[in-house]
């Protein structure tokens, strides 16, 4: 058996910590009393509300839309009434406009059923459904999916990649989705292939998920048809394997140029859970109103993989998961390598939330930083071949304007550099500061 596919340069091996939740089947979280729908969940222009206070709404109704600019509509995840149009806490923006819905516990949840055969519809019509369902990259990027499915004419696409790597420690949401919804993912892949007008799809899965690999292989085999060429590729376990550029290089060998998009090398990448959402939107008419997230870490009493309504507050999830343990030290939305630490539980899940981690003191590293000792380990770890140590030292010396030469604009903040730094320097933070001031060369 030949070695698994991987990217050759850089990368680190943080402890996987998936044992807490990888064997837990997805649980449906009971409907909370309130949902807070952030209006700016996707990359692009934020939604403006299309409902008013006290308005009664049904499950799946449009409550926000983007009139001008890049974006997708926002839907009510449950029936109820609009309690407020105000703002919610946000890990990056501190506070962000949102719609609060008071849910109706009496309302019967809708069952979304197949309405016609998507194969009879045109690529354009399918694309419209993807947009209308409010689908964005729910792996974490939040880019409107319908835009990714229409690459510019001068950069034709020949390969679709599905990202099942889930390389961040702790997170097992995509893993469970592949185990439990494999057929939906494969069908979603075919829909994406039809929209793109191509036939080749590769699904990349890290080798630490052997059950998902065999389940997806079986689903692909059971659904073979001559129009589509879908295969599963096993990837070496290495962070950041799930990063778009690294995934593309590992599976196809192509390198996306600096500051360019994957379409520049003829590839489009979609997360497996986004693909499942596309299937549900097109085949079942279901908008993006709920998603699977992982709740993990030793700081929560009952770790789980939960199917939650978008807009569910972290405080409600904490209560459902048995509360926090006394040695909780940090709460992270996302993975431990790139996720955002939050200071309040009063924060709602968005379409791009992949996990909520409750980490104890011995799961995190709070050691103080010291001077750069020029060991060069960050140069080895950086998957993009940049120079984090130089950027850090320049920022400390108030010369952030001159850091473009070290590749600061190619950095996607994966955290590999800071992970290996023996001097515990907050390199990602220093790089973010550099990006604010660096002059483009």
């Amino acid at each position, binding site marked *: 058996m030949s070695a698994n596919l991987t990217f050759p340069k850089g990368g680190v091996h943080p402890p996987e910590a998936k044992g807490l939740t990888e064997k837990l089947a997805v649980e449906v979280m009971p409907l909370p009393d309130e949902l807070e729908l952030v209006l700016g969940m996707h990359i692009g222009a934020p939604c403006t509300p299309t409902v008013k206070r006290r308005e009664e709404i049904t499950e799946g109704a449009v409550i926000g839309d983007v009139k001008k600019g890049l974006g997708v509509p926002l839907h009510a995840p449950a029936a109820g009434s609009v309690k407020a149009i105000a703002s919610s806490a946000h890990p990056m923006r501190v506070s962000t406009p949102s719609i609060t819905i008071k849910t109706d516990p009496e309302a019967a949840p809708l069952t979304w059923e197949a309405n016609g055969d998507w194969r009879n519809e045109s690529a354009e019509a399918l694309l419209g459904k993807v947009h209308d369902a409010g689908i964005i990259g729910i792996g974490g990027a939040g880019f409107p999916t319908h835009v990714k499915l229409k690459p510019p004419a001068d950069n034709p696409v020949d390969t679709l990649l599905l990202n099942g790597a889930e390389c961040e420690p702790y997170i097992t949401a995509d893993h469970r989705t592949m185990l439990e919804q494999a057929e939906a993912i494969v069908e979603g892949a075919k829909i994406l292939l039809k929209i793109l007008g191509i036939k080749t799809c590769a699904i990349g899965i890290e080798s630490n998920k052997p059950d998902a690999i065999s389940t997806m292989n079986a689903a692909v085999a059971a659904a073979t048809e001559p129009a589509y060429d879908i295969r599963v590729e096993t990837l070496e376990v290495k962070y950041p394997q799930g990063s778009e550029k690294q995934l593309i290089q590992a599976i196809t060998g192509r390198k996306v*140029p600096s500051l360019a998009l994957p379409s520049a090398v003829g590839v489009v990448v979609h997360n497996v859970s986004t693909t499942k959402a596309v299937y549900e939107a097109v085949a079942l008419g279901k908008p993006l109103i709920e998603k699977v997230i992982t709740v993990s870490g030793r700081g929560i009493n009952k770790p789980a993989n939960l199917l939650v309504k978008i807009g569910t507050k972290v405080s409600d999830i904490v209560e459902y998961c048995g509360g926090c343990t006394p040695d909780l030290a940090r709460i992270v939305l996302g993975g431990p*390598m790139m996720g955002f630490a939050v200071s309040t539980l009063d924060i709602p899940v968005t379409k791009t939330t992949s996990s909520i*981690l409750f980490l104890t003191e011995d799961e995190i590293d709070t050691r103080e930083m010291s*001077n750069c000792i*020029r060991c060069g380990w960050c140069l080895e770890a950086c998957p993009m071949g940049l120079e984090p140590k130089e950027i850090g030292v320049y920022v400390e010396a108030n010369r952030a304007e001159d850091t473009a030469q070290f590749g600061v604009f190619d950095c996607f903040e994966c955290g590999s550099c800071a992970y290996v730094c*023996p001097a515990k320097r907050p390199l990602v933070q220093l790089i973010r500061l550099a990006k604010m001031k660096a002059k483009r060369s």
Partner: protein
Amino acid sequence: MWNVSVSPHVRSNESVDKIMWTVVACLVPPLVLSIFVFGIQVLFITAASVLSCMAVEAISQKLLGKPITVRDGSAALTGMLLAFVVPPGVGYMTPVLGAVMAIYIGKHLMGGIGYNIFNPALLGRAFLLATFPVAMTSAWLPPMTDGALFTYMTGAVDAISTATPLAVIKEQGMVGFRDTYGSGMEVYASFFLGWKPGCIGETSGLLLVLGGLFLMYKRYITWHIPVSMLATMAVLAWLFGGETLFTGDPILHLVTGGALLGAIYMATDYVTSPSTKSAQLVYGAGIGALTMLIRLKGGYPEGVCYAILLMNPLSTVLDSWFKPKRFAGPAGGDK
């Protein structure tokens, strides 16, 4: 109550402390052998060096208003290395003064750890060589084979003039060397195992190499600098070290003097050496070449100390010439 910080929230177990103290630990076996070969005063010289380096660091940082970081082990390591490059017969004040130069001037006045241009231990040694030229070039002691630890402590430690192998080569040529030591594998073996006059840390090549292999296993150092330095030395020794071309003795030059100590522990110092592998190969080769130049053609019998100090300032330049390879260039360029 929980806390917040910027990602990543998990980090590797390695730390500066762990690295420094591990290297210190790797130097303990050669130190122990040196005590058996040259006597117990080696322990006191080393202790004086380590403690004064740590004390000078604490005092320097206090005077400069900076947080005191002695616990990270870097000053202790400098102390060990400084002791390792002085002859075993020097007085106890010698390493103390060397510590002031190495730590206060060579490290903290330059900006503290990470900012020093020159290897602090070697800067200390160069200072001592200039300040105490007689002691630093003649306080050699013949190795004891009976392990009588207190031999050299009785009475004043007079400079028993025993020349080091490199001094014999410099003054009497290879002919004189063979007269004094003989030739063949036994000579190499006894030098490699530690039975020769020299500085405290130059004794056992074997123990130094074992320590180096352990550090490579831990990924604290890589082979690039030691191998490029020693290979360059070997080639140049073979080319130019004999009476005629191609008649030199490469092995002899690797097992004598500070070659192994310098290659494994001094030249590989993170702060003063380049960070990329290609730059490191050039750096190591440069040190090897300068060492042989000084050994064969210069006035001193040993060249490792100055060779490293001369290459130290070039580390930044070499790093800028050999940058890491980017994942991909901009669109339209190379694909």
